[in-house]
């Protein structure tokens, strides 16, 4: 039993990182209606920027995290404005757009590889003493990651609830045309969304790199699988659902590993398949109508 509680704790850490990524991904989808398969590479770039900040510029880890998150935001905005938007304006179809995002992920990953090679990098953080809490064990870094996730998600919630821009995001996410016809400056909202989701991608990327101990140019891309599973679980486009998805997947994988470590791989996948078979629109589906066309 104690092992299960222990793995629950580990699951919370995994879930926190996953939540940051999944919310970023799903937020982007909700507002721009785009499945951005380059999201993983966005995370990887942020991890590298944080590495440069920490190891080359010798900044402390906090600043490095901020640098990584900021770079994620900027990259996301640049790609959105300079690549995705022009394609969308041209009337590129939905499935051609997903090819565009794949092409972007190819380019990002390989450019990173040119500079980093196949080597693994690490922030070389010193070990810290474990903190025991309710039968779970964390170290200060992991608690920080969890706290970071909680604070970010709380901030998002407040943003959506109480700020004009947040409410506008929700409106655009629910019904883009209506939002436009009511005078919401969707262009600005979309740029804000790219920034925000890129910020989350950056945070998730750096947190993942810290948790893994070391990372390479392929790290973010492989994480995309989990992010998609979490987002689909909670219904794509629904940030709160994504958080739920992250919790379920994060905790389930760690607890399942107690019985058989190889189940870890499969849990996220099994959840994805189950959701698609039983309730393809996800847990909070019905709330958001998956629109036929991609908006700009």
């Amino acid at each position: 039993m104690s092992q299960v509680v222990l793995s629950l704790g580990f699951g919370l850490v995994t879930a926190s990182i996953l939540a940051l990524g999944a919310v970023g991904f799903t937020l982007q989808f909700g507002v721009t209606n785009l499945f951005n398969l380059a999201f993983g590479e966005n995370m990887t770039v942020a991890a590298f920027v944080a590495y440069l900040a920490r190891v080359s510029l010798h900044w402390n880890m906090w600043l490095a995290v901020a640098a990584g998150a900021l770079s994620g935001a900027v990259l996301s905005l640049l790609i959105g404005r300079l690549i995705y938007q022009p394609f969308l304006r041209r009337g590129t179809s939905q499935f051609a757009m997903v090819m565009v995002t794949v092409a972007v992920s190819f380019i990002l990953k390989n450019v990173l590889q040119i500079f980093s090679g196949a080597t693994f990098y690490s922030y070389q953080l010193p070990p810290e003493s474990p903190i025991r809490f309710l039968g779970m064990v964390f170290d200060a870094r992991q608690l920080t990651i969890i706290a970071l996730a909680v604070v970010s998600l709380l901030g998002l919630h407040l943003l959506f609830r109480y700020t004009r821009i947040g409410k506008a995001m929700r409106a655009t996410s629910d019904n883009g045309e209506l939002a436009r016809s009511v005078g919401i400056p969707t262009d600005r909202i979309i740029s804000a969304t790219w920034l925000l989701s890129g910020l989350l991608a950056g945070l998730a990327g750096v947190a993942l790199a810290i948790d893994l101990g070391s990372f390479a140019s392929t790290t973010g891309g492989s994480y995309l699988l989990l992010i998609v599973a979490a987002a689909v679980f909670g219904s794509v486009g629904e940030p709160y659902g994504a958080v739920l998805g992250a919790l379920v997947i994060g905790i389930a994988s760690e607890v399942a590993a107690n019985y058989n470590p190889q189940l870890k791989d499969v849990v996220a996948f099994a959840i994805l398949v189950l959701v698609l078979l039983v309730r393809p629109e996800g847990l909070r589906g019905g709330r958001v109508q998956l629109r036929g066309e991609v908006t700009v």
Partner: protein
Amino acid sequence: MSPAIQSYAATLLVYLGVNAIACWGLNLQFGIGGVMNFAFILYQAMGAYITAVLTLPAATTQADQRYILGLHLPWPLPLAGAAVSGAALALAVGSFALRPRRRDFQATVMLVVSIIAATLVTTEQGWFNGNQGLFGIPQPFAGTLSLGITGYDWFFVAVTLGLALLTLAFTGLLTSAPWARRLRAMRENAEAAESLGVHVRAESLKVYVTGGAIAAVSGGLLVEFIGAWSPAAWGTGETFIFFVAIIIGGLGNNFGAFFGAFLVLGVFLELPTYLPQLSDANVEESLQSAAIGVLILAFLWWRPQGIFPERKRNLSRAIPAGARAVAVAEAAGTVPDSRNEQPRQREPDSHAAAAGTLSVRDLSRGFGGVQAVDGLSFDLAPGQVTGLIGPNGAGKSTALKLIAGAIAPSSGKVLVDGVNVAGWPAHKVARLGVIRTFQHTSEFGRLTVLENLLTAAPGQPGDSFGGALLGRRHARARQQELLARAWALLADFQLTAAADSYAGQLSGGQRRLVEIMRALMAQPRILLLDEPMAGVNPALRLVIEEHLQRLRDGGLTMLMVEHELGSVERVCDSVIVMAQGRVLATGTMAELRRNEEVLSAYLAG
């Protein structure tokens, strides 16, 4: 020519053949059917694996090859087994991956499946022998033919060529049948196709399964040539190389797919190895892959249809010139003079079957906290045009979608000729004769006008997978009939000149007409029109109104959502006013104009 060079040449040709077969499979799925199979490599790997397992003789000393069944099946049975396994896997994956309606969502799910499969293959020792894979796979007929090494290589090239031609013939058969037309329609606009009776999910699954089988055969062929199967040969990234090949070569065009296979898999990947190495091998490889990404973007921007675009199918040639002229003359003889009120010379439009009846009872549907449609109830008078008007947000479009089956109601009944179709999928409702037109024009852009029309006609032999296999002759008679009917419609609407033009290249008004004609080809009993006059110029509006009146005279029941009150007044026999998701009032326009509630609803909304 030395044996080494012959071996090299033979290898390249075999690889070209294998890749061409694979590309044709993907072309069927994606180029024709619009299904974005991001798990493509999985099927090739599956076919290769099954071929290996079925070909290997019983294990002797190698304990790790315990998954071998030892069947040592004679050629071509292992390839047949591969095809079956590819189809079965596609069926399993498609059953959940094709559930979402959006194709990019489907693609993402398939990508996830591909990644997970790659992981499982290397970790599930019992089945796949981990990273080591299978080896020592005997080549077909290797023992029995005494051709020498080089001779056998050329024999294999011949085998590959044979299989390639077979695949080409098979896919050619499928893509020239009416079934392919439905697939292309599905590719262009899945929602519209569904509304015309195409069961999109089922047809997607069929094309997915077929493509999966073809991919599996290509994998099996490759494995039979190199004699070994290893997970490392089937990385997730390989799928995208195939996509690049057919995007560059030409989507929807088999020659384009072949050319793409030649260009990308042959030239791009083989040629750089002859160039002097500029730097570190890793850097070169990354540059190459990044270049592929840039290439995809470039093509998607400047030439999304590829080097050899899909060929246009000019169906009007199949209609005898004489018949064409007759139809045009007939229609010309009865062009309406909008100034005089004389009744028409011709028969009322007989496109409709007997008038259908439609009743709606307590229909409701909400989104989030908002009730779009809230306890809607009305009856449509059969054989009449009923208008559905109301302020913005009243739920009119939603009501149409609920009736047509595009959205499922949360409660209530929709009775079509007495049958409750509430909750039925759109294609099933369409088969009952309820056809819907769309607010935003929904023509099938890369299909010609004639093809647009033909897609809608139900019950064509050859419009199913099985029917397609029976060949074109089987479908010819009915196709001729339909072409004649379609041509008559075009003549009626004076669009015969555009018969072989891509529908997406017509003007807005013309596209609207195509949509209406298409709906009529489906022989509806009940026609649901969602703002047919939107964005249409006044002259064309009158033309459409005139056609609607003739249809009504012919006995077609129609429900028309419209904001153009002038049209409503002219065309509709009675009008329903909706507000806040339910019926506010019914009557003629004149009556409603005097209704206080109606007026205030319009002012408020």
